[in-house]
């Protein structure tokens, strides 16, 4: 049971908000020592594990070209294109963003979205604006609900889109782990088997987004009738 000390350290470290790199390193070293390795052997094992996991970081090679394109206005252009898809309701805007986000993530373009770059400056204001057009001034609780939904759309569409791209970190991790266990799989095959879940995610979350519109209509429609 002492071997589970690493898990305990990770939980405590994250709860106390200590730098995760430090937490993970201490957890790794403690786990090694708990399993009976000497201190230097643990450091060596950690170094070896870090070096054999370098393939996880290969995805960062895209940063120079992405940075260059951002400098030339890639994000601004993407915003213009997305803004051209202006629909009538909060749900429709979020649905459109969900579809675009999931598809671009599936193409490996995971950096075309994000909370800081897309959700705050564009998606959340557009979704709030659509509801304002329909129902007039919104109560604060409704604004918060729409914003939280915009952030959730970004996460869910990203998580269940990116695994369809064959060179994303999680696919490479799966491949690396199975290789270590003597099972050789193709990244393409892993990506194909991510598609059924991606479709389920789209159906489930889009159904919930349609319900969001209905909910807004019930809440805000009644209020505007009363006034």
């Amino acid at each position, binding site marked *: 049971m002492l071997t589970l000390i690493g898990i305990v350290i990770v939980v405590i470290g994250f709860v106390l908000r200590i730098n995760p790199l430090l937490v*993970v390193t201490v957890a790794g070293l403690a*786990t090694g020592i708990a399993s009976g390795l000497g201190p230097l052997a643990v450091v060596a094992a950690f170094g070896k594990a870090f070096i054999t996991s370098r393939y996880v970081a290969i995805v960062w090679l895209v940063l120079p070209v992405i940075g260059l394109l951002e400098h030339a206005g890639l994000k601004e252009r993407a915003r213009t294109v997305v803004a051209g898809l202006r629909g009538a309701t909060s749900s429709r805007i979020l649905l459109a963003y969900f579809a675009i986000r999931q598809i671009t993530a599936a193409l490996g373009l995971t950096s075309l979205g994000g909370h800081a770059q897309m959700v705050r400056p564009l998606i959340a204001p557009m979704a709030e604006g659509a509801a304002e057009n329909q129902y007039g001034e919104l109560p604060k609780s409704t604004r918060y609900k729409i914003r939280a939904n915009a952030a959730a759309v970004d996460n869910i569409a990203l998580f269940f889109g990116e695994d369809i791209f064959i060179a994303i970190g999680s696919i490479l991790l799966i491949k690396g782990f199975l290789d270590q266990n003597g099972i050789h799989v193709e990244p393409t095959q892993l990506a194909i088997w991510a598609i059924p879940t991606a479709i389920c995610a789209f159906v489930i979350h889009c159904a919930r987004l349609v319900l969001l519109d209905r909910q807004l209509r019930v809440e805000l429609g009644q209020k505007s009738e009363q006034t």
Partner: protein
Amino acid sequence: MITLEHVYWLSGLMMAGVGIINWRDLSNPRRFNNTAFWGIYAITFLAGSHLPDLANGFLVIAMVLVASIRGLGQGKQESSSREEREASAQRWGNRLFIPALAIPFVTVLGTVLFKKITIHGNPVVDLKQVTVISLALATLVALAAGMIMLRPPLFAPIREARRLFDAVGWAAVLPQMLAALGALFAIAGVGDVVSGLAQRWIPLDNPFVVVTTYAVGMAAFTMIMGNAFAAFPVMTAGIGLPLIVQKFGGDPTVMAAIGMLSGFCGTLMTPMAANFNIVPTALLELPDENAVIKVQIPTALMLLGANILLMNFLVFRR
């Protein structure tokens, strides 16, 4: 033949460039920390394969200390103003998407073509790593296209990469660190302990129960660790491989793909995944810091149920 080692050299050169530009940036109060961090990271890419394990271990610990004791800083100067970028976006229009889209397109193309191309009967690239090498080559193709189209100064790409690396910070290394932690967990037998606990408490002689335990375990363990990358090796070594694959003859590809996505359901439900769930509540000025998690929980639970059914139907199909 192009191998993974060459891709690591490329990554090492990029990290070294990021370190050098940080060193020369007087606007960053912690520039030497940044230089040390990215410089050491560059060494692990350039020389890691030849250094002894112990030396690599100390390099990693040095990186962690640099990142956690005084922390990394960020340069103050923006590379361009919003107006400049708007004007540039107007000028280039949708052509800006061409280099960006070239990355996935060339990666896929390379994965298919490199398997067919041989020179004197030898493959051009290491076929075991064809996807990763294709991705690296695709970034070079995209970069060349971007350079030809935009004609920026020669060192602009590495300066722009530095800007993005500064913004991401130490988190850029966290996935690799968690993969290393997973490997240490495997050496220490954490998966065995976890699967031992599972086998003691849950009747694992029924394939459906095993699949459910694996998927729910992925989600739960991801919630504890905040990252499906850390949960995957533990759950897969503990329950997935010995029970689903070896005992019941399941397909490891299906199991791994849907297992990872079950972990992502856990990511949607945990404050440990701070960059996805807590940071946006701050960015969007929401009073409740769990507001995003609360929106995500119903979707995550339904999707976890869907994953259990999908895996049950697909993993044993042959």
